[in-house]
């Protein structure tokens, strides 16, 4: 059985059964320096240990590096505002290396760029050499185009998709045994919250799904984001890729983006969700959103199911993870977590999720 078949089978089985529940750990972490390694080590132990998840495996870690690295909130380092902090990535790589991971590949579809991820990370203030030395077999790939692959991987949405039947993605999302989403605990202007599920929006290559994607074939040098096609349905994705199911697409981004995210999470299931809530922003996903403010929840939230993890994280942020459209934080959008639950990816029912470490009440840090 190929990796792709295994992915498809796993996701299809999940879709048929009751939405699964998996434990979620909430831990206190006051800073990105002192004590971060023992905190994350304990988090992974509370989830059953990293070794059984990564030993001898290829691990792909999707970072959250949204928006241009040149755009800083109040001039502050990106990792303490809206980007995954480099020390989180470094410690996770280090612990996975110790746990026997064979290869650790950091991925992100770099904003408006087809250049190497390493350079994007350098531009974001990361010490790439240090990250490279954090564990054996550390690699980097910008998944905004073909990257180091020779062809795109077509990952199908098992069962009934909301928006797209399948996605053409960089090979990294198929050529992996373990897929990790390291997200940031923050709001999102379109989706209400940006957590481990919404982080997957960035696995779509702009070469195909971007605003300057090729009409027929991918544009391997993308220089724009994905607002026109995926957010607003103002243009089609490259014809080489599977097209949107609806012949008359709904142009409301509050309808589209949550559903696309869920389709992506179904096509490329997340094995480990880590949410960086040590220092972050509230009020939006980046400095381009008005009313953004700095917050320091001092938390790490992690789980083996992204829906459960995001449901707990949403509750920690002071919201009801089962809230419908019109209620904060989903004022102008559908609730991605509920859509994911309906797709069978995981439960959003807090009563069915075992929370380890801190309780939600102990960790609660209202974002509104």
């Amino acid at each position, binding site marked *: 059985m190929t990796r792709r078949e295994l992915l498809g089978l796993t996701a299809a089985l999940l879709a048929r059964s009751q939405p699964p529940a998996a434990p979620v750990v909430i831990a206190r972490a006051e800073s990105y320096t002192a004590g971060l390694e023992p905190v994350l080590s304990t988090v992974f132990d509370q989830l059953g240990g990293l070794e059984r998840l990564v030993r001898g495996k290829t691990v792909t870690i999707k970072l959250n590096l949204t928006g241009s690295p*040149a755009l800083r909130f109040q001039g502050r380092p990106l990792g303490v505002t809206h980007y995954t902090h480099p020390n989180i990535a470094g410690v996770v790589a280090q612990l996975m290396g110790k746990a026997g991971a064979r290869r650790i590949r950091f991925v992100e579809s770099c904003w408006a760029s087809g250049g190497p991820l390493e350079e994007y990370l350098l531009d974001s203030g*990361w010490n790439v050499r240090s990250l490279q030395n954090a564990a054996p077999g550390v690699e980097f790939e910008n998944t905004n185009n073909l990257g180091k692959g020779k062809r795109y991987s077509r990952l199908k949405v098992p069962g009934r998709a909301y928006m797209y039947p399948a996605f053409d993605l960089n090979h990294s999302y198929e050529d992996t045994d373990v897929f990790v989403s390291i997200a940031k605990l923050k709001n999102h202007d379109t989706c209400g919250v940006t957590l481990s599920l919404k982080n997957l929006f960035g696995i779509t290559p702009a070469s195909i799904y971007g605003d300057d994607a090729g009409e027929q074939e991918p544009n391997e040098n993308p220089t724009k984001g994905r607002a026109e096609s995926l957010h607003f349905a103002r243009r089609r994705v490259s014809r080489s890729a599977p097209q949107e199911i609806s012949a008359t697409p709904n142009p409301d981004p509050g309808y589209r983006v949550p559903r696309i995210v869920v389709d992506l999470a179904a096509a490329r299931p997340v094995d480990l969700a880590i949410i960086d809530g040590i220092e972050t922003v509230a009020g939006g996903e980046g400095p381009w959103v008005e009313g953004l403010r700095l917050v320091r929840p001092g938390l790490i939230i992690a789980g083996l199911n992204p829906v459960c993890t995001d449901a707990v994280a949403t509750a920690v942020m002071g919201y009801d993870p089962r809230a419908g459209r019109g209620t904060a934080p989903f004022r102008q959008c559908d609730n991605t977590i509920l859509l994911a639950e309906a797709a069978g990816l995981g439960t959003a029912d807090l009563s069915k999720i075992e929370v380890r470490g801190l309780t939600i009440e102990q960790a609660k840090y209202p974002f509104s």
Partner: protein
Amino acid sequence: MVLALLLALNLADAVPARWPSADPKTLDLLAETPINVLLLERAPAGTAFSEASAVRGISVLAVVRPGADVAEAVRQAAAAKLAGVMLEGAFSASAWDAARSAGLAVVELPPRHELRLNPAAAVTGVADGVWPGIRAQAKAAATGGPWIETNTGFLRYLRANTTAAVWIGNVPPANTVIPVTSYLAAIADAAVVGARWIVALDEDFSRRLLAREAAALKDWARIGALLRFFEEHKKWRRWRPYGQLAVVQGTDGGTILSGGILDMLVTRHLPVRPVPAPKLTAEALAEARWVVNVDPEALSPEQKEVLRNFTRAGGTLLNAPPGWKLPAPQPGQITLSDKELAQIDEIWRGVNSMIGRTNMGVRLFNVAGMISSLLASPDGKQVVLQLVNYTSYPVESVTAHFLGKFTRARLLAPGEPPRELELYPVEGGTGCDIPQVSAVAALVLE
């Protein structure tokens, strides 16, 4: 006359400041700074200030502005035993002559649109400039980076045109709280390209400094330390731009406006070498591999042949479209208008596609709120990368990938001991990680 000549000789190393008082007691405030030329808004009544200044090795000039009786202002300056006058603003030729006839030193600081390149002048400069700093975007977007207001493009161009000391006399914006970091940026914005910003404190800061308030003294000490830093390394002013990208510009039209092609290249951290069209020779392009020719029609047939030979030897030339020329600046204009920016976009698109990820001397990472300057020593054995941070926060983890092999790197910063940094090989050259840049840092490579 003798005094004026002495001052003229010293103007190359002058560190000028507009001074808010003619009280000799205020000179104590200059003790820890390298400031050695003071500009007073008017000549003082007596000679006490100039005499006390002279004891400290400080020269004093009176500022004369348009509308004033120049001859009378010069007479008053002479009576107060000042070293000379600075004519700041637009003056008639007869006014300049009147000033010079008195035998005192005369510094000309016209508005930008009246910039004159006087080969005999010890100082060349302009009275106006943008106030350096990060301009808030009217409407932010995920794709947008900060735009840095800078005079460096203009000052680089001016430095390439003259061997005189280059001064810029812009003053802090009115009715605005100016943090000390903003003053540091103003000093460094000029200094990293070998020019001088005339230190000018806002009214509130001046008042608090003269009253010797602790916070003002602390900020003033930081200003003094940065000025000292650049004086300790004044040899860099004689170093040449290091890099493989040359920009050929004419000497008329909008080339003297800020926000133009040089500033665009500088904000992308491309180590650019301005070549004024009249100075375009094969030697001027000796180390260049890419040339952007902004003003093809300004070139003589011989100079066009220089460019042809450059491309025959494998160089890449990007010419502005035929007939392309920025209009001459209007009175009061110091930056490009929106229409002119759109015009320059025609060239910028070509430059962008030509550059790609090419290393033209250095590639810098995590420098969005900074401007850089890359210079090489006359013997080519040393290279200095100067970084100016325009944000309000220290920037951590800056990475530089230099073209060429280097074996030693020292990080210098105002008020801090030199620090040896590790070098490592990267594609086509040498990499170096700079842990932190506060206001200014310089990395010296050997």
